C-alpha cells in the first residue's frame, strides 16, 4: 500500500494534535521512499523546524485512567515489556549520537543537531509516560530508567551495547568511514529502521485498535514521524558512502552479520497476544522492515543471511 498524496500532506503538515488523528500505518509507509527521492539534509532540517513538537504539551490524564481501569494486567505487562525497550533505546540513541557529528558531510551536521534534539525529546516522552501513566517515581532521567530496566529483554544489550562500543570507536576515529558505516548500519538501519519502526507499529496498532492511551498514541506517532527523518537522513548518508566507494558494502554486511547473530538469542518470552500480535507476525515485520531499508540504499544480502534472518528472535526496542 502506498500513502496517497493527501495523506502525505496531512502527515507532513500535521501539528501535535493532528498526529493523534493520523493512522500510524500511514506514517510508517511515509518513511520509505525510493533512493532517488531521498530528501537532502537541509530539506530534512527544514521539515524538522516545521514538525518539532513540545513533549510537555501532552496531557497523560486519560492514559492514566486507561492504564489503571481499562487495561488488563496481562496487557499492561506485555505493554511494559515492549515500551521499556523503547524507554532505554531512546536514551541510548540520545547519549550515543554526538561523535558522529565530527566526520560527516557539512549539511548532514546541521540536520544531525536536530536529530539529537529529537532523541532527547523522545527520552523525555518516555520519562513522562513512566511517571504520569505507569506511576514510577524518582529523581532525574536515570532513576526512572533504572526502574524500568527489569522489564527489558536481557538481549537488549546486544544491539545497544554494540552501539555504545561503536560510538567509542567513532569517538577515537571520527573520520574513519568504515567505522561510520558500521555505526550507521547499527543505528539508522537496524535500531531505527528495523527495531524502532516494528515496535512502533505493534504498540501503536494496539492503542489505536483498543482505543486506549491517547496521549501515548499522539506523542509516539509524532515520534514515528521524527524517526522518518532520522532514517531518511541516515539512508542518504549510507548511500553517499556507497557512492564514494562501493566496497563499504562489506561493512554493512559485517555489521548485519553480528546484529543478526545476536538477534538469534533471547532469554525470556514476550507475550504479544494480549496486544493482538504473534511472534511470527513480529518476525515477518522485522524481515520486511530490513528489506525496505536495504532497498532504500540499494544493497542486497548474500544468501547466507537468509538463514540468519529466519532465526531472528525479535528484540523489542528502538530509538
Amino acid at each position, binding site marked *: 500500500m502506498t500513502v496517497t498524496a493527501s495523506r502525505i500532506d496531512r502527515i507532513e503538515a500535521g501539528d501535535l494534535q493532528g498526529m493523534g488523528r493520523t493512522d500510524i500505518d500511514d506514517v510508517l509507509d511515509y518513511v520509505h521512499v525510493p533512493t532517488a527521492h531521498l530528501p537532502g539534509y537541509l530539506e530534512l532540517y527544514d521539515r524538522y523546524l516545521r514538525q518539532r513538537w513540545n513533549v510537555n504539551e501532552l496531557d497523560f490524564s486519560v492514559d492514566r485512567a486507561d492504564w489503571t481501569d481499562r487495561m488488563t494486567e496481562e496487557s499492561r505487562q506485555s505493554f511494559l515489556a515492549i515500551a521499556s525497550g523503547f524507554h532505554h533505546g531512546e536514551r*541510548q540513541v540520545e547519549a550515543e549520537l554526538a561523535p558522529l557529528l565530527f566526520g560527516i558531510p557539512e549539511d548532514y551536521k546541521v540536520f544531525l543537531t536536530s536529530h539529537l534534539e529529537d532523541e532527547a525529546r523522545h527520552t523525555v516522552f518516555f520519562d513522562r509516560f513512566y511517571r504520569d501513566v505507569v506511576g514510577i517515581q524518582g529523581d532525574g532521567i536515570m532513576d526512572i530508567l533504572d526502574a524500568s*530496566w527489569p522489564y527489558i529483554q*536481557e*538481549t*537488549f*544489550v*546486544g544491539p*545497544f*551495547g*554494540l552501539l*555504545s*562500543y*561503536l560510538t*567509542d*570507536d567513532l569517538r577515537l576515529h571520527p573520520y574513519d568511514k568504515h567505522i561510520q558505516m*558500521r555505526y550507521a548500519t547499527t543505528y539508522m538501519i537496524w535500531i531505527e529502521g528495523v527495531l524502532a519502526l516494528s515496535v512502533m507499529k505493534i504498540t501503536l496498532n494496539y492503542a489505536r485498535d483498543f482505543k486506549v492511551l491517547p496521549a501515548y498514541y499522539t506523542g509516539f506517532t509524532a515520534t514515528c514521524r521524527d524517526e522518518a527523518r532520522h532514517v531518511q537522513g541516515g539512508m542518504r548518508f549510507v548511500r553517499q558512502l556507497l557512492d564514494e566507494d562501493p566496497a563499504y558494502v562489506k561493512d554493512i554486511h*559485517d*555489521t548485519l*552479520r*553480528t546484529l543478526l*547473530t*545476536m538477534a*538469534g*538469542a*533471547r*532469554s*525470556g*518470552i514476550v507475550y504479544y497476544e494480549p496486544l493482538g500480535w504473534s511472534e511470527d507476525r513480529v518476525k515477518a515485520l522485522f524481515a520486511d522492515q530490513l528489506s525496505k531499508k536495504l532497498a532504500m540504499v540499494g544493497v542486497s544480502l548474500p544468501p547466507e543471511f537468509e538463514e540468519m534472518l529466519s532465526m531472528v*528472535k525479535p528484540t523489542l526496542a528502538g530509538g
Partner: protein
Amino acid sequence: MPGFMTTEWAESCMAAVNVWPPAERRSSKLQEFWEWIDAVRPTVHGRLALSVRDLPAGAGGDTLVFDFDAGKATSAAIVERAVADDTATFLLAGSYDDWRLMFGGYDVGKMVMYRKLMLEKGDTLEFFMAAFFWTELLAAIQTVPVELLVPA
C-alpha cells in the same frame, strides 16, 4: 577470601567461568539462551583481558587474563596491562570504582551498555559475535568472593 587481582582470585574466576551457569541461573532463562552460548562457544579462542585503569598500588598486576580454547578457559593469570596489550585478542578496561560497582551486584548488561567496561583492544563486531558469552562471563566473575583493595 582471595584478594582482587591475585593469582588465587584469577584461578577461582577461571573455575567459575568453566562451570557456568549454576542450576539456578540456568533455569532463570530460556534453554535456547544457553544453546545460543553453546553455539558460539567453539568460536571463542585466544586471550581475553580484563583490566583496571587506576588500580591502587600494591597489587601484583592490574589485569586479569584468560586464555580460551573453543570457549573453555585453559589458563588464568594476573599480568601488567602492557603485557595484556601485546597479547590479548580482546581487552576490556574500566575504572576501579566501576569494578567495585560490579562486585556490588551492578547489572553486567549495564556494565557494557553504560560503558563501565570499554573494549580497548580488539574488533568490536567480532567481540559482539559472542556478546552474551562475554556478559555471562562477567556474571560468573561477579559471583567469585573477592577481597577488594581499600583505596589509599
